[in-house]
C-alpha cells in the first residue's frame, strides 16, 4: 500500500495492483506513463489518476453499459504491443468528457484504452470501427438503447 494525491478524493491509499503503465502515455499526454486505476465512489465508472500529477485524472467507463452492441475493434499489433495474447487478459474502457452541461457528457469510442490485466501495461488505441467517434453523448446513447429494448419486446 502507498499513498497518492488524487483529484477526486484528495490523498488516498492505493495498491500497487492498481498502478497502470502506459509506455507511450495517452495521446496528448505522451510524457506521463504511470496512472492509478481507482473505483469511483459515486457510480459505475473509474478514475485514471496520474501518479505524479494530482490535478490530472481521466474518467473511464465500460462502454457496454450505455452503448448497445458495443464492440471493441483494435489492431492485432496494438494488443501485442502491450503483451495481450488472449482477450481474457484485456480490460477496455472509453474516456469520458464531462463538460459544464451534464447533458453533453460524452465518451470517446474512437480512442479506447486497453489494459493488459496481468502486466497492467496499457495503451490508448485508435478504433478500427469507423462508426465510432470521439464524442458519443451518453444520455442519447442510453435513450436509444432503452428505445431499442422497448421495440424488441
Amino acid at each position, binding site marked *: 500500500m502507498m499513498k497518492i494525491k488524487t*483529484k*477526486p478524493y484528495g490523498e488516498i491509499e492505493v495498491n500497487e495492483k492498481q498502478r497502470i503503465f502506459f509506455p507511450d502515455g*495517452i*495521446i*496528448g*499526454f505522451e510524457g506521463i506513463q504511470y496512472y492509478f486505476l481507482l473505483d469511483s465512489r*459515486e*457510480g*459505475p*465508472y473509474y478514475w485514471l489518476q496520474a501518479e505524479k500529477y494530482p490535478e*490530472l*485524472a*481521466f*474518467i473511464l*467507463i*465500460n462502454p457496454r*453499459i*450505455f452503448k448497445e452492441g458495443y464492440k471493441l475493434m483494435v489492431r492485432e*499489433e496494438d494488443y501485442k*504491443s502491450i503483451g495481450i495474447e488472449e482477450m481474457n487478459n484485456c480490460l477496455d474502457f472509453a*474516456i*469520458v*468528457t*464531462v*463538460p*459544464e*452541461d*451534464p*447533458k453533453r*457528457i460524452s465518451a*470517446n469510442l*474512437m*480512442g479506447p484504452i486497453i489494459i493488459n490485466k496481468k502486466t497492467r501495461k496499457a495503451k*490508448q488505441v*485508435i478504433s478500427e470501427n469507423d462508426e465510432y*467517434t*470521439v*464524442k458519443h453523448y*451518453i*444520455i442519447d446513447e*442510453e435513450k436509444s438503447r432503452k428505445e431499442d429494448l422497448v421495440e424488441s419486446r
Partner: protein
Amino acid sequence: MLVLTRKPNESIMIGEDVEVSIVEVKGDQVKLGISAPKNVKVHRKEIFLAIQRENIDASKPVIDKIGEMGGIFKKKKVN
C-alpha cells in the same frame, strides 16, 4: 519540409521499408497507397488530432456535474 512532385503510379520510399505511392489523382483528391511494416502506425492526421483534442477536454472533468447526470452515473449494478 521536403516537397516532391510525383505522378500517378509513382512512389516515394521513406527509409527502407515504407513506400507511399500515388494511386489516383481526381480533382482535389489524391488516393495514396502505403506499404509499411505492421509496427508502423498509419493514421489520418485528423483522427489523431481529434483524439488528442478530446483527451485534453477529458482531462478537465467538471467534477460536480457528474452527479447531475441520471442513468448510468447513478449507482446501479452492472451486468
